């Protein structure tokens, strides 16, 4: 949406800082601006199929939608691994200035931080689990420019990019897939400035309490010029124990972001984060994560995306890990995205282990109802 000079995420997303469920306006914009059309539409409105489940009109106070993503991970020379990435329903009720939002779904494998039941891990294998990524209540003020929320939310830090396991999201624990936390937040969406700050109270779907992080996260982004936005992010969070060494840990992430559309079909995203981890009896670790991504819209609804990324986690790796992505995303039908990512990564490991190089194809089919 940078290409269309939408700095504010709050008009199109229920979360005022973006990602997740769309508002009715966002749903219409998705159909008008993002979907592939064989011919340029001439009708005066968004397609009727842009509604919930393609054709259902909902009362104004209720917003329902869903997110289903599945695919396959195809490592070169390895075994194809089917992926069941997300199967969530979203619900939002908005009454006057008050907003209530919750998601509920099913997850398979690697959904631990967002899973509620059944408890698994250790000797109990993880099968299907009930997943609740977000549940929060909020109130808006100042003509919806300000929103105050409490509950389980996305962590306000960095770019809200879709590729949740890119280094910048992974090592800062700020992806929108599994890294939500419980907290209290205040967000602002003005004409030139937007931002959010959140007091982190921990992930209560993770136990025992010693593992839960407390601290803060926040970002602010300013419109420097039309379609050019610069931002800063900061996060400091500490837990009484990390899951590897069982030692208290405080982690820092502080970074800058940029979003820029220099010409209409092209959008550039960049993020650089400084990282630090402090633990008693261990040397502080310093690291970084960086991303540069370009999204070229070949025609409306068909995106070619290239990205370069790097990271160092300060664990004695010999040089940084680096990666390159080449992706195609096609919003082929109302509510349907087909996506293919080619990911080449050189992963550095602590000495004496050698770095590894792997190329993986990730094919996805995504329904957003």
């Amino acid at each position, binding site marked *: 949406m940078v290409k269309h000079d939408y700095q504010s995420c709050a008009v199109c997303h229920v979360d005022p800082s973006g990602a997740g469920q769309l508002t009715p306006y966002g749903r219409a914009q998705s159909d008008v601006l993002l979907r592939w059309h064989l011919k340029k539409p001439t009708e*005066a409105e968004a397609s009727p199929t842009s509604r919930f489940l393609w054709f259902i009109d909902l009362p104004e106070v209720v917003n329902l939608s869903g997110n289903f993503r599945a695919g396959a991970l195809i490592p070169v020379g390895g075994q194809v691994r089917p992926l069941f990435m997300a199967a969530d329903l979203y619900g939002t009720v908005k009454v006057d200035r008050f907003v209530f939002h919750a998601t509920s779904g099913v997850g398979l494998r690697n959904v631990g931080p967002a899973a509620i039941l059944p408890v698994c891990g250790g000797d109990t294998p993880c099968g299907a689990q009930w997943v609740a990524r977000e549940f929060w209540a909020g109130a808006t003020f100042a003509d919806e420019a300000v929103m105050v929320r409490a509950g389980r939310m996305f962590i306000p830090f960095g770019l809200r990019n879709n590729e949740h396991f890119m280094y910048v999201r992974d090592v800062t624990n700020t992806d929108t897939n599994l890294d939500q936390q419980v907290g209290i937040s205040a967000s602002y969406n003005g004409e030139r400035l937007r931002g959010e700050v959140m007091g982190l109270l921990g992930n209560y779907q993770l136990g025992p309490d010693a593992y839960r992080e407390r601290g803060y996260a926040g970002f602010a982004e300013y419109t420097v010029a039309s379609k050019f936005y610069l931002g800063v992010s900061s996060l400091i969070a500490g837990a009484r124990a990390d899951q590897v060494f069982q030692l208290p840990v405080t982690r820092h992430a502080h970074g800058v972001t940029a979003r820029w559309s220099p010409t209409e079909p092209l959008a550039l995203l960049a993020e650089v984060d400084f990282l630090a981890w402090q633990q008693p009896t261990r040397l502080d670790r310093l690291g970084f994560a960086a991303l540069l991504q370009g999204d070229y819209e070949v025609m409306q609804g068909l995106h070619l995306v290239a990205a370069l990324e790097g990271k160092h986690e300060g664990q004695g790796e010999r040089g940084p890990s680096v990666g390159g992505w080449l992706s195609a995303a096609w919003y082929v039908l109302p509510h349907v995205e087909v996506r293919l990512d080619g990911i080449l990564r050189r992963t550095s490991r602590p000495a004496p282990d050698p770095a590894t190089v792997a190329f993986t194809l990730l094919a996805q089919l995504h329904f957003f109802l």
Partner: protein
Amino acid sequence: MTSLKALLTTAALVLAGTALAGWTKTGESVASFKGSGPAGFKIEGKTRSLDVTDDGKSLSVAVGLKDLETGIDLRDRHMRDNYLKVGEKGNESAVLTVPVDAITWPEDGKATKGAAKGTFALHGKTKEVSFSYSISNAGGTYAISGEAPINFNEFGIEVPSYMGITVKPNITVFATFSVKKS
């Protein structure tokens, strides 16, 4: 007697020439507007369709609304057809008319800034508006930029609303162009 007649004739021609001295637009021009809505929503429209006319006392800056674009085709159609009703007679353009002597015109090589009042005609209604301007004079070509806050409720334009997003009626209109006195 003959020479007096010639002198009077010459003087009359000079005076008439001064009274009819026209302002003509020169070079590129752009007119735009900025509006806003809830939760940081903003909208900007732009067109290069701008013309300048004068009647010897006032300058009129007319902005064609047919080609006004906001970057989203559907929104443009809504704006032109549902709200500005550009297809109806008298709604084709927005016109700011300003008395020439209400403006402080800078000398060659200099620039001025100021504020003045004029009349703004839009959507079949005409209202007095205040505006600010800046002008620079380079060899008799005046580069002008101006802006004026307007409330489109005052011009009988329905408040645009789409899928729960309602645009605030207070917008700012801008114009940048150059004129030359012929």
